[in-house]
């Protein structure tokens, strides 16, 4: 599966459009990673456990988008975008959306 933020793939022709596909994941902050966060809030800076958690979350949303695109028979997603939103106390949503297409 080719993923790109551009609306085309170099040197490949788009032969079919399947429309919008998306994938989303909601994760809560209580993920067993909160152990050192209290101390970290004193010295500030990066919270590595949460950086990793958000990366995993984004990967999962992307995987769901890929699954949706595959189910439609696509082999690429173009004009891919990500969004993050704070949906409830201590919970964040990551969503990915794009256009599923088939390349020749």
């Amino acid at each position, binding site marked *: 599966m080719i993923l790109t933020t551009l609306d085309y793939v170099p040197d490949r022709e788009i032969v079919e459009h399947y429309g919008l596909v998306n994938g989303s994941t909601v994760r809560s*902050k209580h993920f067993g990673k909160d152990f050192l966060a209290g101390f970290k809030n004193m010295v500030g800076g990066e919270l590595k456990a949460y950086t990793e958690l958000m990366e995993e979350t984004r990967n999962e949303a992307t995987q769901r988008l890929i699954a949706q695109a595959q189910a439609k028979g696509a082999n690429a997603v173009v004009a891919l975008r990500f969004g993050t939103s704070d949906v409830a106390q201590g919970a964040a949503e990551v969503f990915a959306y794009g256009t599923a297409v088939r390349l020749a």
Partner: protein
Amino acid sequence: MELIVGLIAILIGFFVGGAREKRHIAELKVREAALLSKLPTRADRGPKLVAGETFLVTGNVVVAADSFKSFVGGLKNFFGGSMTMYETLLDRARREAVCRLRESALQSGASEIVDLHIETSYLDQIGVEVSAYATAVRG
């Protein structure tokens, strides 16, 4: 007692947090300089690519203010005005996220990055996440 604990936390934030911030900014300067000539990066899409392989690259970071920044932030919130300490925190976070994206692209053999997007979101009770994503071009 609580006042003393709070005061110690603010002092730790000021000294340790401040030193960490200084170190991070110095480190970012070195990494950005190393990337400068190797990997042209643009936020727009540039001229239409006719050849080469493209792939998605990402970089992210979650940061939190230290207790000194939070304390001063609380005061400034009351009196109004610009919140410089949060500005530097966000600036560091954005530069870090973009650096990570570019470093990972370089490792994957990219020669150019186009269509870079930067997104900032507030994570309730945790901090702020900056995530960057772009299309990397190989060949």
